């Protein structure tokens, strides 16, 4: 889990640098500071489970084992990108790794995750579908539709709210009827109130294991609220200045990666082992960056590929 957290951190820091170099265009939403959630859940998943993420989905995609190079290449809009340059940062998907997509419109994917869970139920597998979303998402209708639907159909789905205290620029408590926007609403759907320290990968892993067990037993869905914090702004355009300095300071003190580092040292792992991990991750991120930079710009004819299942784009004969 230390290594995965390091990968997520270093990958996204590099993505940020590439932004600054104007190599990554458009927008992107980093989850620096929130790595423990993707890590804990990612490590608790089976390889054939399904992940559904938001536009803030780099970490969830990498946590499923999607290769760093093609993911980085996608951010650069290259032909060797994981989506051939057609999706970009907000739509990372790798079906072969169980990463069923990153959805840029708030709420929809909670409903879609239900469908994947329903399909697993019908096919009689023990797969679980996991939908990650932000605190802001708890205020859209789809959240409530999805929860009710999942409960009445006993679906093997886990809804994970990454509560980073802000929706876009607005503190979540200013726009929600309850202090814990996910957990406090669980009772409305007959679910347990589950809150976990989202900066502690071990705690997240433990909760993930128990809700996955429940889903695989046929006991139905769960709603988990992982409380965490993003170190940076909402997206590329946002310096995050609306947040009080003391608040940012306090959360930086609780950075999940140094915390985990410290825990491993206390458990007897040596500093040199940990720095070796850091080092090998750095090398992989470097290779991924090189891979991405080497990628060709997509050819113009790709514009007309894959609107339809025949591969083409023609809507008339």
């Amino acid at each position: 889990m230390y290594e995965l957290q390091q990968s997520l951190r270093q990958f996204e820091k590099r993505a940020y640098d590439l932004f600054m170099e104007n190599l990554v265009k458009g927008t992107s939403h980093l989850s620096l500071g929130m790595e423990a959630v993707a890590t804990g859940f990612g490590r608790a998943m089976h390889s054939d489970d399904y992940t559904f993420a938001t536009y803030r989905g780099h970490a969830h995609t990498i946590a499923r084992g999607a290769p760093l190079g093609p993911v980085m290449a996608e951010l650069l809009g290259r032909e060797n990108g994981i989506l051939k340059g057609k999706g970009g940062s907000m739509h990372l998907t790798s079906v072969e790794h169980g990463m069923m997509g990153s959805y840029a419109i708030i709420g929809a994917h909670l409903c879609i995750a239900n469908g994947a869970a329903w399909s697993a139920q019908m096919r009689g597998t023990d797969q679980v579908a996991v939908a990650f979303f932000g605190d802001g998402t708890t205020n859209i209708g789809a959240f409530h539709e999805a929860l009710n639907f999942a409960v009445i159909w006993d679906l093997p789905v886990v809804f994970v709210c990454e509560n980073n205290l802000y929706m876009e620029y607005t503190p979540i408590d200013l726009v929600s009827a309850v202090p814990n926007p996910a957990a406090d609403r669980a009772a409305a759907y007959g679910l347990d109130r589950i809150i976990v320290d989202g900066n502690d990968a071990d705690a997240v892993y433990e909760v993930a294991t128990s809700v996955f067990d429940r889903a695989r037993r046929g006991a139905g869905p769960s709603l988990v609220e992982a409380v965490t914090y993003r170190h940076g702004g909402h997206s590329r355009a946002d310096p995050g200045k609306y947040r009080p300095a003391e608040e940012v300071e306090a959360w930086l003190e609780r950075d999940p990666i140094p915390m985990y580092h410290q825990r491993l040292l206390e458990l007897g792992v040596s500093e040199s082992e940990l720095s070796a991990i850091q080092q090998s991750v750095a090398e992989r991120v470097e290779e991924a960056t090189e891979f991405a930079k080497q990628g060709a710009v997509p050819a113009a004819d790709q514009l007309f590929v894959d609107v339809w299942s025949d591969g083409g784009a023609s809507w008339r004969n």
Partner: protein
Amino acid sequence: MAQLSYRDAVSLGIAQEMRRDPNLVMLGEDIAGAGGVFKTTVGLLDEFGPKRIRDTPISEQAILGAAMGAAMTGIPVIAEIMFSDFLAVCFDIVANEMAKSRYMTGGQVTVPVVIRTANGAGSRFGAQHSQSVENWCMMIPGLKVVAPSNPADVIGLMAAAVRDPDPVVFFEHKSLFATKGEVPSGEIVDELGKATTVRTGSDCTIAALALMVPRALQAADRLAEDGISAEVIDLRSLVPLDTRAILGSVVKTGHLFTVEENPRLCGWGAEVASIVAEEAFWDLDGPVVRITTPHIPLPSAEALEDLALPSVERIYETVRTTMD
């Protein structure tokens, strides 16, 4: 051949596909025990059981989201949205999610969903339960759009829609449910994107869809009495669009009329007219004329609703005066 109602053709068409593909499932509001608010799913629960024919809460986003999630993980789905007006409630899933996934994932995701929905006016249901919204869907890259006009086509196009790997919005017309037509026995499978010439003629072409097809045919009968030979084309599907059939007919007749039920502004008839203007301009002997509902919400009163929709009389009059 047997006489069958359009309504019964819907359930027969679904049953045909569910017998063929044991993975195919269906969900929607009141579709199981109740047999659908339009009685288009009667008998399906008895034959296929509650695992394959499932009632849902009033949660249109959850319905189509579940359809999409199941379809992209190997279970093809037919989802019912009770009235087509309600597509607005879940349009995110239709327009942004189902329609776009294949393209934006570089071809990784396929969404074999059929969204069935009751479209169109004629039942005096007023502005929120009578709309023809096929244009909402036609303009979205990634969606296919089908609207049959008769029972045999319902079955054949349902089969084509279910077997198509792309998301298809299947518009059943409320005012056609009670109508009957000949249906051949045995399995019926059509092809998407093939229009039918339902009446041949030499003087003008009338392109119509769904409820407007029988009206165009009746108008053509009257035109024949006046010595005007009208060819009537049932488009059947807007995406894919059978432009070959339209252009071929226009080249022959020199005149095109489109008859559409939706409001005039940006209706599919405008698209058809523009294709013909671009590609068969020199074969035209006069301007393309669109017969549509005016750009108004639909009124409920019988007298007003009838006035809004293209009637046999209006189609006949428009063609006759134009051809004079």
